[in-house]
């Protein structure tokens, strides 16, 4: 830039960075300031890093005067705060933080360039809801489109990983490419070099960020794989039971609507894998009953999903079997290793409680034991803590042998107990299936409340049993008497379900 004697600009450009502690927002800020200094521009930054590195939401704020100031010119006034509606560039290191900046009205459709990474780091509130507590990302995307003058949204974390760099360097590259600040890529590169830390790695990330923007932020969405292809894969994975699976699939496809084929197929694969062909056939019979009552495809699909998951409840046999599969160890290898020369040692943290242990025994033997145990330890039952080294031969054998005990399952106490509740639930579903579809969906969803292991699962099962026995019937009776439909019962069930899922224990 030439030395100017007249200053035409009247105000600094403003940049707001929203990040999480430990994400490198401070370094990003320093780079931008250093780039401005390199370009001979006056700049100022500030931050609230009180909880930096402590994973809380943090913000950084910068202002850059867009022209070189001649010697002796009055100094521009830099603000220490962003002003809502008066921000030129917003950079968010994560999608929820972009949402936060938008929520605080910082963006203006007249002038704000919003650069955001689209990856998510979930907040504690989102993480601790049993079920799905994830904030709907579409809403943030919608607000970003509407309220940013221009928007660059891409997964900066993935882009950084792809080149072995950090997300903040990639975001800096994106900022440089957009040309919204009077700074050149050379200014930014000089800033990274002056920083002196991991210079090459950061320059690589910076280059990746430059490219993302020039390539118009192409997003790769994986197309859904064709069911026929997947079906063949499932059959192969089932090995000797593959033929039975394909037979049942063909049967189901002949019998049910096409929209259900994929879900039904996945369910049949799951059940065959879990137990055997007969078990999967029993499952299909239950679905058939629902369809016979006149249930539509939406209701049936939900029922198929929930029923299949419930019928493949995770007993000790199932866990042992999942933990000893070839695919599992291969997956761990792939997730934790980049080269094949390293050695992996996997230790499984298992702690079945008494219920889970005698649960796999035949009911005739286990039932008297269970009665005594329940009297003796009404709250927490004794447990058997073990750290199994699954990558050693002896450790593997312990789990592998347990996983072979599938034949015990149909006679087991656990099976009896699971099916006692499952039948009650299924009965309730059948009762309301043709009454009201939303209500029926809500009853079906009760199955998804039952999650977890040991005491967690017992607590949730008991809660569902209570809802089925004590809440549902009187509520239905009230709705019938009122004759205004079943919205009240549906809403009551929904609330009760949410309450159980978000309860602390």
């Amino acid at each position: 830039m030439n030395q100017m004697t007249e200053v035409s600009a009247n105000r600094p450009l403003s940049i707001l960075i929203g990040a999480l502690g430990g994400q490198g927002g401070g370094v990003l800020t320093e780079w931008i300031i250093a780039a401005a200094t390199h370009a001979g521009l006056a700049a100022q930054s500030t931050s609230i890093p009180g909880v930096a590195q402590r994973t809380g939401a943090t913000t950084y704020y910068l202002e850059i005067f867009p022209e070189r100031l001649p010697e002796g010119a009055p100094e521009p006034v830099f603000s220490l705060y962003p002003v809502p509606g008066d921000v030129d560039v917003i950079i968010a290191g994560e999608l929820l933080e972009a949402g936060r900046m938008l929520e605080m009205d910082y963006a203006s459709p007249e002038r704000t360039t919003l650069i955001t990474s689209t990856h998510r780091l979930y907040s504690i509130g989102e993480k601790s809801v049993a079920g799905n507590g994830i904030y709907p990302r579409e809403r943030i995307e919608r607000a970003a489109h509407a309220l940013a003058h221009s928007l660059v949204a891409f997964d900066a974390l993935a882009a950084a990983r792809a080149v072995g760099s950090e997300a903040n360097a990639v975001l800096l590259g994106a900022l440089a490419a957009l040309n919204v600040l009077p700074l050149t890529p050379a200014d930014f590169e000089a800033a990274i070099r002056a920083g002196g830390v991991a210079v090459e790695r950061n320059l690589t990330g910076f280059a990746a960020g430059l490219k993302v923007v020039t390539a118009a932020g192409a997003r790769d969405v994986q197309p859904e794989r064709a069911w026929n292809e997947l079906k063949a894969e499932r059959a192969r994975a089932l090995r000797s039971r593959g033929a039975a699976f394909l037979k049942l699939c063909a049967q189901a496809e002949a019998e049910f609507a096409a929209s259900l084929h994929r879900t039904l197929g996945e369910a049949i694969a799951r059940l065959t894998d879990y137990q055997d062909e007969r078990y999967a056939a029993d499952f299909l019979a239950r679905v058939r009953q629902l369809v016979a009552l006149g249930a539509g495809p939406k209701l049936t699909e939900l029922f198929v999903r929930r029923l299949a998951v419930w019928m493949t409840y995770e007993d000790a046999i199932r866990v042992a079997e999942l933990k000893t599969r070839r695919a599992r160890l291969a997956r761990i290898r792939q997730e934790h290793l980049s080269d094949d020369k390293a050695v992996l040692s996997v230790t499984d943290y298992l702690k079945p409680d008494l219920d889970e242990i005698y649960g796999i025994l035949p009911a005739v033997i286990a039932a008297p034991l269970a009665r005594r145990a329940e009297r003796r330890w009404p709250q927490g039952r004794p447990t058997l803590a073990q750290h199994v080294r699954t990558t050693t031969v002896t450790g593997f054998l312990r789990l592998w042998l347990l996983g072979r005990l599938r034949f015990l399952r149909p006679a087991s106490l656990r099976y009896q107990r699971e099916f006692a509740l499952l039948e009650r639930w299924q009965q309730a579903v059948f009762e309301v299936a043709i009454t009201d579809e939303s209500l029926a969906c809500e009853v079906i969803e009760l199955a998804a409340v039952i999650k977890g292991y040991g005491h967690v699962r017992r607590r949730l099962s008991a809660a569902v049993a209570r809802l089925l026995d004590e809440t549902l019937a009187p509520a239905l009776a009230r709705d019938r008497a009122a004759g205004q439909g079943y919205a009240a019962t549906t809403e009551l069930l929904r609330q009760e379900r949410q309450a159980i899922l978000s309860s602390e224990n």
Partner: protein
Amino acid sequence: MERSFAADVKQLAFGNGQTLRGEGILAITKALLQSGISYVGGYPGSPVSHLLDVLADANESLLAPLGIYFDASASEAAAAALLGASINYPMRGAVTWKSVVGTNVASDALSNLASPGVIGGALIIVGDDYGAGASIIQERTHAFALKSSLCLLDPRPGLQNFARLVEAGFELSEASNLPTMLSLRIRAAHLRGQMICRDNVRPAISMLSPLHQPSFDYSRISHPPSTFRHEAQKFELRLPAARRFVLERGLNEIIPGEDSQVGIIVQGGLTATTLRALALLGAADGFGRSRMPLLVLNVVHPLVPEQILDFLAEKKRVLVLEEGMPNFIEQEVKALAYDRQLKTEIHGKDLIAAQGEYVPQVIINALTRFLAGEAEERRAALLQHAGRARQMLEQPVPPRPPAFCTGCPERPVFSALKIAQRELGATHVAADIGCHAFATLPPFNQGNTILGYGMGLASAGAVAQAFDRRVISIMGDGGFWHSGLTAGVANAVYNRQDSVLVILENFYTSATGQQANPSSGVNPRGQAVKMSIAETIRSLGVRWLRLVNPYRVSDTLAVIKEAMTTKAEGLKVIIARGECQLERQRRAKPQIAAKLKAGQRIALPRFGVDADVCTGDKSCMRLNGCPSLTLRENPDPLRDDPVAHVDESCVGCGLCGEVAHAAVLCPSFYEVKVIRHPRFIERALDEIRRRIIGLLQT
């Protein structure tokens, strides 16, 4: 320490005319050296921790050669008492801490300092942690300046102005004998800009040129009857001297304006926000040239009546912009105007939100009311999209409160405490100040009260007697050495309190940036000092004391349950010892990288979750909250709810597995040790194992 200040230390050595680039707090530190201080000290706390951090790094190369003593004060009280050197001797000294809490702790010594006054300049840099980003209670430091007669500086933001006021602050203190406070808001402390330096000044009295004669003067002792004279001196001599100095040296600034009918009196610290607001409302330009005059108070106590009256004179309306309540400045300005029977309308809190941080929106709102006319249209234009995002988002974006770091040794203790209370019933938990205060937030929600730094145990005194089960108090090692030792442990033992104290010893004062404390084994000057909490507590007569490794949740749980149920009377102390993970990783990361590069064998532990075994009940999250323990989409085509997932930031502390065990949650967690550059025998054994296992696998 959290940050290395090697580059900053170099800048502190800069001489005349050199340009320093850095944060506001660095400019202030540099100005201390330019002022010829003999000693400096303080207690860390946001936003002034870095002042101490950078001095610790500069001690050997810069402070010691100048003979400057650097005191790693044990508390703000100790730091304030350090200034006692300037009562009798013409030595300049500076101390720093976080306000208002630190000033509370310091206030006994401060009163005793302010009463006799100082002959050597005494400067207190307080980091004012007030407003949106604050981590402490919302009170004004101003009240202390008023009650103890301290000068209070609130500089207009800008590194050069900070330096100017530090240097002037020492002279002001010496001209008036009043200790002087310089208050720095968070954003100002972290403001990054530049200043032109001057040479550092070697103090006349120092470790290199020590005193030889004690000065005894009863009139300088805070004891009657001297104190009666001190009181009179403050108001008859010292404050008037300070006012003269402020006026003569032009410490406050007048920004001229054509419109002489109106004016604004503003705290120095709010100047930039006010000028920006005026610019947005069309009443100023981007260079601070305003249509109406402003009186910028870089010195907010004492005010200079003639300067204020001069500003008010001939004006119809004046607005006082003063952050926080009570509105001391506005009241004083109004009183002055009343005494002089001025007709000027004086506005303040009638036009602006009384409480909270004066962020731009608040000041824009106030100025719009004050200016009316064109300002209203400009404000409306600025706000034309306000609220639209909230509407589109439908529900508030989830908060993201600060939390324990990945692998933090304090988190497992709260996991154990939460499990223990599920089993034994909930009890009162007296929380304390420190990272462990994060336990009061989700997912732990542990902690019923916070009464100040190191005060957790003391705050449980009466509750412990009035509760039907034992109450639990939390204390960090920082809090223990700050005041918990006396106000907490000694007090509880003396009163034969029957309760449980959990001390989290992680060897640093971590929340403020891992400063050394007496548990660290070394002081900030790098001298070896090891003080033991366990031995100290034993010597106070605590009989029931257990040390636990926090990462062993089941063991910690058992010890907590024992403490809660044992027949043993008196205070039961559990010390959970584990090094601050941030500090540990800072050391470990380069070591790991070096080993990998050198091709040496190294075992790296990490944790994982089997997505097909996880049922998505999230019980683990509610007992853990580790940042690396997160969610992923359920890979299962039949299930919708996200499942748990350990991301690559895991440091392998093992908590998730331990919690799953201790709380009997689920079998989804596994530990994987990746052995890089394994020995030949390890590789051979692995090969054999994999072959055998492979034969059985499906």
